[in-house]
């Protein structure tokens, strides 16, 4: 049973009750978006709980365990506390920008939920330009950060706002290029098509393991790293480093408005994980999704397992990696990720024009990915060794990018 069939059945039932056609369709869409938005909002309660539990375990603590079973209701209690806090507006703040910014931040993130394919047929809109839509809506979040920084009438908030814009704009480029590799391979920007492409049929049975991340691990890694930066997660959380900047651009916000920024940030991390899963890890594909009745349910299960898996991975990185400096952040985006991605795209475009069967092209793309990553890792290693020798600061831990490149060689991430 697909959602489109449900919505058609619902709208035809409403029309049977005597509603005009447009009203029935409007009502069905309203109900759909109500469910989707509330799912997004409520899932944040779970996301924050996962984050706190995961980081506590990494830091050898227990984490929240008092409110509810396993502390599951801790976030609800926190939300109630935030709701009851005083709403402070700074002196001479720009009222419009200050009050609009948290709303825009949440809006920009919630709009992304519309195109995420949760299961076969379970997607808000299967937009034919979904990949571009995801990129375009990122700019709303940037605008919100800028408005918050400027509207707070606080120079630290303003400076942090500039830093946010610098980081988000820089990492948008490798992110877009990584999405482009998928679009180049699948020939479609529709998330539905991209997920469909990642099936793997074996004797008429859909194994659902033709994940694009297997074909192009380089693009997957670049997408994951840039999505960490886009979601302002460690190691790219220098935007709201508590020890240095207090909270970054939302320093002046309190109560519910602060909670909205918080919500937007957690949901953004989850949605970027969902986009990564859709593009590279097969979306809802998995063994047995082609089955008639339980297929879609299995698909939803696979999708959620993958997305929450990526989310936990993000939190794992958050618990283990140190924070990088702003110059390292810019360096890594512009001199490492962007050239890497451009190299990958050029290689892939050439390979896809070769007169060979598709399977051979996939193998060649995989080889190109590994090759380009190896070259970049080699160059980086050389650079950091030279820099270490030059600055002779051997007592400092080797910079983050150096350690990241080691992990790239060892494991997937």
């Amino acid at each position, binding site marked *: 049973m697909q959602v489109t069939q449900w919505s058609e059945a619902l709208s035809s039932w409403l029309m049977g009750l005597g509603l005009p056609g447009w*009203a029935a369709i409007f009502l069905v869409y309203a109900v759909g978006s109500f469910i989707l938005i509330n799912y997004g909002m409520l899932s944040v309660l779970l996301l924050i709980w996962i984050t706190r539990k995961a980081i506590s375990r990494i830091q050898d603590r227990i984490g929240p365990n008092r409110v509810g079973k396993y502390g599951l209701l801790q976030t609800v209690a926190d939300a109630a506390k935030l709701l009851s806090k005083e709403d402070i507006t700074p002196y001479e703040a720009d009222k419009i920008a200050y009050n609009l910014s948290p709303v825009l931040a949440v809006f920009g993130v919630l709009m992304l939920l519309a195109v995420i394919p949760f299961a076969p047929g379970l997607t808000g809109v299967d937009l034919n330009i979904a990949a*571009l839509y995801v990129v*375009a809506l*990122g700019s709303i979040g940037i605008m919100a950060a*800028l408005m918050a920084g*400027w509207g707070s009438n606080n120079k630290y908030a303003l400076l942090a706002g500039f830093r946010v814009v610098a980081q988000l704009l820089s990492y*948008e480029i490798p992110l877009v290029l990584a999405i482009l590799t998928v679009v180049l391979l699948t*020939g479609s920007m529709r998330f539905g*098509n991209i997920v469909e492409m990642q099936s793997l049929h074996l004797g008429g049975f859909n194994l659902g393991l033709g994940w694009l991340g297997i074909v192009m691990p380089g693009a997957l890694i670049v997408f994951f790293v840039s999505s960490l930066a886009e979601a302002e997660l460690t190691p790219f959380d220098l935007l709201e480093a508590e020890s240095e900047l207090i909270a970054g651009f939302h320093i002046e916000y309190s109560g519910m408005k602060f909670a909205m920024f918080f919500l937007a940030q957690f949901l953004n991390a989850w949605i970027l994980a969902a986009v990564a899963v859709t593009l590279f890890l097969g979306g809802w594909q998995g063994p047995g999704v082609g089955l008639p009745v339980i297929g879609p349910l299995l698909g939803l299960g696979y999708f959620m397992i993958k997305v929450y898996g990526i989310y936990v991975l993000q939190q794992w990185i958050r618990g283990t990696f140190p924070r990088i400096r702003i110059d390292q952040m810019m360096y890594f985006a512009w001199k490492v990720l962007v050239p890497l991605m451009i190299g990958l795209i050029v290689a892939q475009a050439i390979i896809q024009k070769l007169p060979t069967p598709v399977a051979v092209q996939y193998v060649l793309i995989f080889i190109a990915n590994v090759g380009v990553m190896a070259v970049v890792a080699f160059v980086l290693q050389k650079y950091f060794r030279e820099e270490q020798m030059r600055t002779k600061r051997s007592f400092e831990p080797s910079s983050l990018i150096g350690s990241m490149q080691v992990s790239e060689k060892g494991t997937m991430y």
Partner: protein
Amino acid sequence: MQLPLGIEVPIPTFEQFVFIQVALLTAVAGLAVVMSRNLFHSALALTLTFFGVAGVYVFLEAEFLAVSQVLVYVGAIAMLIAFAIMLTRSMMYGRTSPLNNQWGKSSLFAFLFFIGLLAFARATPWPAVGEEVVADEALIGALGREFVTTYVIAFEVLGLLLLLALVGAVMLARDR
């Protein structure tokens, strides 16, 4: 719909109703851009105008254009303008007047431009519906093909222009 005084008011269809809202949003935001006394608010209103125009594109079933509009205008150009305003201190805090000593001339030219647009709009045979547009990936592919075949020179010149701007920015910002 019949109003008491015998005035006939056509009931808008749902699409017209939504279009009126989008058009009003665009127009009011555009007005706010020029009327606002605070330059930063002008920039914000300009962003809203860009969104409204994207909404109009959606009505014309040009979703690709609409999303590109948001990506380029909201994501880059509005951000650039906001930056430029925020980094010029006197503009940032001053309450500027929306009028300067050239308001007479500019309003005359704006009016003439409006007359020209009106004449143009009246001369166009409405509804200007041509052949059905394939609103799908095929359209994007065709667009890309046009860029590298028919309009390749314009495309290359644009790329060169952007490269020059990039080089210029690096020249301005480098250490001397």
